[in-house]
């Protein structure tokens, strides 16, 4: 699928980069100052690795498989690769990972992806269409519900930004934002801010005090109007909206030469 970014023309002065590289770089910048990140493989892994090599050398990544402090000799293909286990600082059992690390409140930022996201950052990873007769069956929650309910905040990376992925109403709410959770079950305690940051192929949304996702920056070559057209809800645009600074030569060099020379995730 051709993305909007690839069709847009970048100014001649900035280096050429792919959507994957842009998403990894922008995600990395938002990780500055964060300590412990729960992230799966793919773009979040690249973002954390880039942060470790640039702005945030102390940042730690916790994998769903229980691996913490991984020092893999090569980029893993799955969250449970043998290369992640060898040389790791610890491999936690599942009750420790989910019960104590996540539920215990140790995670600063959880990274999630989704097929659909709504205005307040609730996510659908279950089905397109009705649950009992879906047109597309998606994988399901996995640990996403727990990551959403227990992280201090959640970053969402959305490779595709259009009205079928940024929707007014989810087909199925797999992982509710804390606001949606409190509305449904006011007596069940929630933790954290839910989705605070969405990094898409078009721009970045950040949440306001009410938890609404607002357009904070647009990537170069993208217009605010384009974001409005491709988003299924009326987009609130921050007064401070800016153009996302493009990836620097150094960020691209780290990603391409140091972190993912085999192009496992960079496409």
């Amino acid at each position: 699928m051709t993305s909007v970014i690839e069709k847009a023309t970048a100014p001649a002065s900035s280096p050429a980069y792919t959507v994957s590289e842009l998403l990894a770089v922008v995600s990395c910048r938002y990780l500055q100052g964060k300590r412990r990140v729960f992230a799966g493989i793919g773009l979040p892994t690249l973002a954390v690795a880039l942060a470790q090599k640039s702005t945030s050398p102390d940042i730690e990544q916790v994998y769903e498989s229980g691996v913490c402090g991984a020092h893999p000799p090569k980029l893993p293909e799955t969250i449970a690769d043998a290369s992640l286990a060898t040389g790791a600082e610890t491999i936690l059992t599942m009750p420790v990972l989910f019960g104590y690390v996540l539920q215990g409140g140790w995670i600063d930022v959880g990274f999630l992806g989704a097929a659909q996201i709504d205005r307040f950052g609730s996510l659908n990873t279950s089905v397109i269409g009705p649950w009992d007769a879906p047109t597309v069956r998606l994988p399901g929650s996995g640990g996403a519900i727990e990551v959403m309910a227990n992280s201090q905040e959640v970053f969402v990376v959305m490779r595709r930004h259009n009205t079928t992925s940024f929707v007014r109403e989810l087909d199925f709410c797999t992982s509710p934002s804390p606001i949606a959770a409190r509305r449904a079950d006011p007596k069940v305690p929630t933790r954290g801010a839910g989705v605070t940051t969405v990094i898409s192929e078009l721009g970045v949304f950040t949440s306001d005090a009410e938890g609404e996702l607002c357009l904070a920056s647009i990537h170069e070559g993208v217009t605010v109007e384009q974001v409005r057209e491709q988003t299924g809800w009326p987009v609130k645009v921050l007064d401070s909206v800016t153009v996302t600074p493009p990836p620097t030569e150094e960020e691209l060099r780290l990603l391409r030469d140091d972190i993912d020379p085999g192009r496992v995730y960079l496409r």
Partner: protein
Amino acid sequence: MFSLQNAIGTFVSDGDVVALEGFTHLIPFAAGHEIIRQRVKGLTLVRMTPDIIADQMVAAGCVDTMVFAFTGNSSVGSLYAVRRAIESNGTGGLKLEEYSHYGLLARYQAGAAGIPFMPVRSYAGSDLVGINPQLRKVASPYEEDVETYVVPALNPDVAIIHAQRADRHGNVQSWGILGPQQEVAFASKRTILLVEEIVDDDIIRSDPNRTLIPGFVVDAVVECKYGAHPSFAQGYYDRDNDFYRSWSAISKDPQRLQAWIQEWIHETGGHEGYLTKLGEDFFHRLTPTPHLSSPVNYGSVL
């Protein structure tokens, strides 16, 4: 000590609730294949992450109901037999009971501990509550105006797990990513254990803290070298990523999928035949360089 054929034949019956566990690592593929070979029917398959083994068992007609938290083939494609059995334009017929990772894990924990249910911090506001009546909310007996979601204990008829090594009594040692194996073994009425190798008692006793599951929980010990292929066994063989990547194309075409099951499961006659068909040198490229842990000193009475 059992043969694989005998263990499945003895402990797995039509209509059972069977938990096959292993979180990407140590997936008991050989046992799943043997269930298909013995044409077991009407199973409730419990698995946190139904992946290729679930696709194969669903395609072979072994599974009526799937209890799960995440069903997919990692990042390398779809499970088309599972999807055909669920999606509106498919063949239908697969009943689902859907959780999240911790929800299903907590069901094993409650089952293992002999308590009726387990509270979890998630599920408030999730549509899973609407489609899964097992997800219920209770008032905290300790705090005013506080509620929590709970999941019920799960005690599968059979747990099937794979590990690196055990002694002949079934004391299981495993390392690397541990998955929910310990929880599901304690939760289940019967446990079938497959291992890469049966080792001398002395080896197990040299490092008792590494024993994940005591022998008294295990009903059948099966020595089954390479029995987790195409998944991996830390320190023994790596994941066969080529096979994982090839699965989508096989699974997408129902005829090709049935032909694959016929060729690689039924016609091989057993795990030995499967290994023979893979070829003598097959695992060379998947064998990792040794990377040994430093021994710890348990000390001994003077």
